[in-house]
């Protein structure tokens, strides 16, 4: 998180606000509700209270305007700049402006007023932008559902005002994973047209051969309809598809695009109903088989006949000596299987059936 210079904040915890005008995109009551909910997001985790004024000058003056709207800080028509706000202070300090040229909504069909208002009111209270892509104070708009604050946001606002003396029960979003944390574990690993995608919590890293630095992105900002938690993923290069598993459902990607007709149930692959989650999946290009790991067992799916091979499940420990425990994620490169479990990755030779090397899981991230 970041604050404004000199950690600008309101000296009085009882802050006033006024909604000066309204957007025609929403009913007046919906705008009122969105602004009140956005203020409550911050009130729940600080001693701050917000009193609504209907006339005169309030600490936070909220308005909708387009292009040049009176503060020599013009908006830019649809898209681009959505809103802005000023840090705490006299006069324009705390004032919050929304670009009327945007379409404001209560859902995800356009720009969600509640989400943008919660972000801007963070500025009006003294928060600057965060570099954590999962934080509410990250500068780029992302539609999210559920509790909007990340731990990073709460830490930042409480560094200014302290905690709420009567804390509400909130469930902050975990912060972005640190790629070189020695204890880092992965949820899933897959290839995608020459790139490597690594899923962790609500995020995924994208490793491109020509990029030195892996890129961390929110899953939902690329695939809004895929859950925040991916269990397993694999690429079938022959079909140019990446299959992503979460719980008992699976999605298919063609490139970065979701394939129509998904999600489907994993049991369509021939898994018994008793299987409720796939831990790891990997496609063995040389055999055309996809291995699906669940708990201590694994299954073999024939991509050509699109049927599960008979004689499965088999024990991971029996067939992959050296891999004693469950598998978090798996990948296959040039005859080597890479099993990821907790903070380690095991390089397993598929031909000579033995573990050749054990490294930290995040060595794949150049750590």
């Amino acid at each position, binding site marked *: 998180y970041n604050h404004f210079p000199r950690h600008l904040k309101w000296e009085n915890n009882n802050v006033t606000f006024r909604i000066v005008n309204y957007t025609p995109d929403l009913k007046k009551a919906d705008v009122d509700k969105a602004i009140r909910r956005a203020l409550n997001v911050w009130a729940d985790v600080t001693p701050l209270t917000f009193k609504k004024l209907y006339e005169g000058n309030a600490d936070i003056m909220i308005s909708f305007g387009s292009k040049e709207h009176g503060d020599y800080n013009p908006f830019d028509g649809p898209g681009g700049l*959505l809103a802005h706000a000023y840090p705490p202070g006299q006069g324009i300090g705390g004032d919050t402006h929304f670009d009327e040229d945007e379409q404001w909504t209560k859902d995800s069909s356009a720009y969600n007023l509640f989400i943008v208002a919660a972000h801007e009111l963070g500025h009006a209270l003294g928060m600057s932008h965060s570099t954590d892509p999962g934080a509410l104070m990250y500068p*780029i*708009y992302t539609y999210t559902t559920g509790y909007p604050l990340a731990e990073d946001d709460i830490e930042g606002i409480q560094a200014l005002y302290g905690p709420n003396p009567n804390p509400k029960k909130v469930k902050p979003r975990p912060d972005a994973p640190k790629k070189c944390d020695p204890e880092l574990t992965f949820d899933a690993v897959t290839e995608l047209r020459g790139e490597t995608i690594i899923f962790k919590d609500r995020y995924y890293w994208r490793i491109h051969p020509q990029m030195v630095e892996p890129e961390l992105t929110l899953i939902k900002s690329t695939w809004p309809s895929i859950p925040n938690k991916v269990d397993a993923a694999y690429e079938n290069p022959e079909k140019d598809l990446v299959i992503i598993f979460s719980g008992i459902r699976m999605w298919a990607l063609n490139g970065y695009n979701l394939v129509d007709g998904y999600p489907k149930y994993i049991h369509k692959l021939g898994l018994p109903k008793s299987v409720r989650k796939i831990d790891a999946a990997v496609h063995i290009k040389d055999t055309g088989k996809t291995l699906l790991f669940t708990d201590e067992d694994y299954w073999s799916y024939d991509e050509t006949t699109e049927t599960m091979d008979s004689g499965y499940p088999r024990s991971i420990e029996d067939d992959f000596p050296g891999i004693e425990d469950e598998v978090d994620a798996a990948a296959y490169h040039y005859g080597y299987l890479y099993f990821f479990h907790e903070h380690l990755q095991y390089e397993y030779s598929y031909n000579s059936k033995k573990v050749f090397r054990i490294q930290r899981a995040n060595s794949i991230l150049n750590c």
Partner: protein
Amino acid sequence: AQSSAKPLSSEDIDKQLLAEKYLRRFYGLPSGLQGSRTSSNFLQAKIKEMQKFFKLEVTGNLDDNTLAVMKEPRCGVPDIGE
């Protein structure tokens, strides 16, 4: 002497203008005329600052990923506190 320099394509000019406008608004790139050398140094330094903020690969160049982030809908408050 033969010169391999060639004029920027209009697409490159658009990208340059987009980047300058973005960096002026959010990263304090100085506006107004400067010497060509200082302005390209400034521009590259500000591109690096923006790439670092968004955890992109810090190259100082206007690569596709950097431009893609510059085109995302976002908040109008600058990213650097000053």
